């Protein structure tokens, strides 16, 4: 059994009033200090390379989408947010997504899709804001998800850097 020894209170403390006054003086002083609130939409957060926002699809320099609709992100997605239908193209890589929907209401921004992607086609962009007036509008289709590679470059470089950790052979 643990016996907690409480501090003996002095008379002033027992009276409680002086302590009340002390407390009041503390809160009164704090009223005049600078608030730390960030006025969010006007003062947005700084975005860094580790910012993990909503997933977006990479459009390569030759204007073709990097995604081959392999479905690994769909399978990896723990929230079942992704729906992909593939189709054939004439390009060297024969397969491309005809439909690529991410239900942003389901998406939990975990980044599993980014990790699962074998083609470096989906990355967590720095886009964080998500608001609309209907549920349908928040199911993003392929056109809404496409981003030029340059827009995602910071994150792409970061992910590559992280991944090289696992690629360097261990000392053993």
């Amino acid at each position, binding site marked *: 059994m643990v016996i907690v020894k409480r501090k003996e209170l002095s008379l002033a403390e027992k009276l409680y009033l002086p302590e009340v006054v002390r*407390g*009041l003086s503390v809160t009164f002083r704090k009223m005049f*200090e600078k*608030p*730390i609130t960030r006025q969010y939409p006007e003062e947005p957060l700084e975005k860094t390379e580790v910012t993990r926002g909503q997933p977006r699809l990479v459009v390569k320099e030759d204007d073709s989408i990097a995604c081959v609709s392999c479905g690994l992100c769909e399978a990896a997605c723990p929230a079942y947010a992704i729906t992909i239908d593939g189709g054939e193209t004439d390009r060297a890589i024969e397969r491309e997504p005809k439909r690529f929907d991410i239900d942003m209401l389901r998406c939990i921004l975990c980044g599993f899709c980014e990790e699962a992607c074998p083609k470096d086609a989906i990355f967590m962009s720095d886009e964080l804001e998500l608001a609309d007036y209907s549920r349908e509008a928040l199911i993003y289709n392929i056109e809404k998800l496409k981003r030029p590679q340059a827009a995602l470059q910071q994150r792409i470089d970061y992910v590559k850097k992280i991944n090289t950790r696992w690629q360097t052979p261990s000392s053993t």
Partner: protein
Amino acid sequence: MIEWSVLLAWIVKATVIYLGLVNVGALMTLAERKFSAWMQYRIGPNRVGPFGLLQPLADGVKFIFKEELMPAGANKMLFRFAPVIAALPSMMTIAVIPFTTKDVVLGGWNIGTFSIVNLDIGVLYILALGGLSVYGLIIGGWASNSKYSLLGGLRASAQMISYELTLILTILAVVVMAGSLDLQQIALSQNKVTDWNIWYQPLAFLMFVVATFAETNRHPFDFAECEPELVAGFHTEYSSMKFALFFIGEYSAMTVMACLTTTLFLGGPSVPFLEDPHWALQIAAFLAKAGFFLFLFIWVRWTLPRFRFDQLMALGWKVFLPLALLNLLATGVVKSLV
């Protein structure tokens, strides 16, 4: 036969005072949020109007458009009536508060002292009506047919009855000092700053202030709502304007109590170091003093943690009641000797 000018004066005063009271109530909700924000390094409401000044208006509109809910098994009549009972007494008690001791003269038109009525038993009137407001709470709590509401209402009644005693006994000390139940007379008797009752009755003042906190169910004694234990206490089941009425009642009660404290202990409308101030100055002085007490309500709320209910009761019955009795006795003895 009342003279028309007297009736008109009365209407003007009543209109100004009631509008003021309701507006103060509304502004208090904003002030509450603003001050609490500042004390916590925050900004507070700042989206509606300049500095968020129109926030109470937005809240009011929101309240009106909220869905009215009626709990299953509630006593419909009492459930609807309770917020009215809770809000009404404090609104009525403001009638006897003397905002000036001098007659107000508007461009040669004397409308008398700036209080709605000059009642020679003003103190009794306030105590009698003030005691009614507990009904609103306990009826609201009971009629909701919810355990949290009922417990909140029970606590409210226990607490308010306990502290009513302290309140009355401390007021009695002041009445003994002034020798009158007329608030006007009490205010007049403290015309000079050295005559203020706070200097002669510091203990009574202290207990009175604490009792007002308990009477208005304010922090640190807000056991009737006590969120961590009772969800929202007696108004758990209320929504829309009915809920808003409870709020208006609470803030009006606070305002009245602040006015009463000012009148009883801080000389009411008296202006320090001025023997014969202008009536407008008197109103300003009164509002400044009352404003301080309103700020105190907020200030204390965001400083002190909530008591335990048994601590509250122990304080009321074991400390304040004997002290108030002793204080009254001493006051009487001293007064009769001097």
